[in-house]
């Protein structure tokens, strides 16, 4: 049922993973697309043909050519280079915000589920409130108030992600905490901390990974949306959403300035969705066995 059922060395875990991936081919598609994006982002400084913020007024708004594969924008900057550099922002904001939200949410959720009563009410009550506010609006509000930069953007997204993981972590914790192996651990005098970390956490890891992947998809979309609104990382730093925003001014005559970066957002979000969706099907016994 879980993605990583038992400890059994790295080799074992790897084999399990391959098996999980093989159960649903779409997760392979997602993983491959994602790896391509990551490689492009990492290699951006070496493979980008031009400096992403170098302006060249003489060649502004030129359509795609051998010189500029995807054309140039209104400042004559090379669009391909900007997309490659922009991948770094999208991928890092997307993953870091979700990892942050996941860490905070999971710890709170396990704690709430394990302790129960007062702590459960308090923590889950606060989480419900945060969850009531749509991700985009939360991002809008936090970034508008704290100012648009990489750190605030990441925090804003993490704030809306955390409650979802608290929910995900809490439910299985409650069902696991009275199972024999946890009871046995308690009888042997293990601390609550140790039980939560060593015995409950591994059991929910699979679901966390699946939801994490799906939430990175959302986070990338939200980052792009906020940048499009003008609340992302400040120009001239290239971000995909920001590029679409700038291109939107010339949408009638030079639509490609907006179209190309959008394709990359779409592929990245799709990659995370394919990955998460495939993994979810693979580890969900209800969907698998029929």
């Amino acid at each position, binding site marked *: 049922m879980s993605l990583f059922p038992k400890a059994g060395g790295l080799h074992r875990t790897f084999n399990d993973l391959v098996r999980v991936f093989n159960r649903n081919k*779409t997760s392979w598609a997602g993983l491959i697309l994602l790896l391509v994006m990551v490689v492009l982002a990492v290699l951006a400084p070496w493979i980008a043909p031009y400096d992403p913020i170098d302006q060249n007024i003489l060649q502004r708004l030129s359509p795609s050519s051998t010189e500029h594969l995807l054309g140039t924008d209104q400042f004559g900057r090379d669009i391909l280079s900007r997309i490659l550099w922009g991948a770094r922002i999208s991928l890092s904001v997307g993953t870091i915000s979700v990892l942050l939200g996941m860490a905070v949410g999971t710890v709170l959720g396990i704690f709430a589920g394990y302790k129960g009563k007062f702590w459960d009410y308090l923590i889950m*009550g*606060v989480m*419900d*409130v*945060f969850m*009531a*506010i*749509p*991700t*985009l*609006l939360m991002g*809008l*509000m*936090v970034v*508008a*108030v*704290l*100012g648009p930069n990489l750190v605030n953007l990441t925090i804003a997204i993490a704030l809306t992600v955390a409650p979802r993981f608290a929910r995900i972590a809490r439910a299985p914790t409650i069902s696991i905490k009275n199972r024999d192996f946890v009871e046995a651990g308690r009888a042997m005098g293990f601390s609550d901390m140790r039980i939560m970390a060593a015995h409950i956490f591994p059991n929910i890891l699979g679901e966390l990974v699946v939801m994490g992947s799906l939430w990175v*998809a959302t986070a990338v*979309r*939200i980052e*792009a*949306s906020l940048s*499009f*609104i*003008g*609340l992302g990382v400040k120009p001239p730093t290239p971000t995909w*959403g920001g590029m*679409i925003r700038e291109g*939107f001014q010339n*949408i*009638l005559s030079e*639509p490609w300035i*907006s*179209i190309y970066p*959008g394709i990359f*957002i*779409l592929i990245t*979000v*799709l990659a995370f*969705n*394919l990955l998460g*969706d495939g993994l979810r099907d693979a580890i969900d016994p209800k*969907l698998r066995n*029929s």
Partner: protein
Amino acid sequence: MLKYVLKRLGMSIPILLAVLTLVFVIIRIVPGDPAMVVLGDQASAEALEALRAKMGLDAPLVEQYLTFLFGALRGDLGLSLLSGKPVLAEVMTVLPYTIDLTIAGVLIGVVFGVPLGVLTAVYRNSVTDYFIRVLSLFGLSFPAFYSAILLILVFAIQFQFFPVISDPDLSDYGQRLEHLILPAFNLGLIMVAYITRSTRSSMLEVLREDYVRTAKAKGVPRLIVIFRHALQNALIPIVTVIGLYLGVLIGNSVLTEIVFNRPGLGKLILDALSERDYTLLQGVMVIYAFIIVVVNLITDLTYGLVDPRVKHQ
């Protein structure tokens, strides 16, 4: 049933209060003096003082909080810093546009999503199923602003079927519809994807039920089994989809309104942001919080109404 309604109603009030509190807190943590943010650092001390008094920022924090809370509950959201008009009035002028858009978006989602979901469930693991599933994953991977731009490029600029800017005169119903179609499809896109997926999974579950097998065994025609026996029950969980994805719906309506330059809550919140009109920003957030709590309440109650098991829990 009444007990269930009251219990559920009782649960919404603390959530609403807490969300209002959260909005208040976030707006108050603006670094520096909001009055200076609005007027710029060249403003005179008197002007700053006057604006602070107008914004109610000279009062103690607790008093500000209570004023805000009781005001919000009475429908008094203060005056917009920019226009000087009551925030509620500003909201009410644009609210019909957002309601039109949202309802149309959900309708499109249901009209296309339910049949597609049934199709994928009935022809499970076929090419059709696979194709529609990948397509629906595509649909929910589209950032709403990007799909809006593409729709405009194709249907408003290339083919000129619809206006580029969606700013209808609401009393002219023909125009109202004409300006609604493209933005509504943009908002509907993600709803189609979500509804297709949830119809599929709830249909799959229902199709395995004993009574469906019995009906089949009795020789009830296949289509009647699918639509009468299965779909009717499979539709119940779909009610919750709207509650579940309300956040996405709201976020995407904001982006849709921005790209189509369509009046509405989304455009209002963006104007509030760019003009640093904090009372307006706060007011629109209160309205959103209110809408979210009410819609969640309604979907929960509907769910309780159509599925008797829920209210007895």
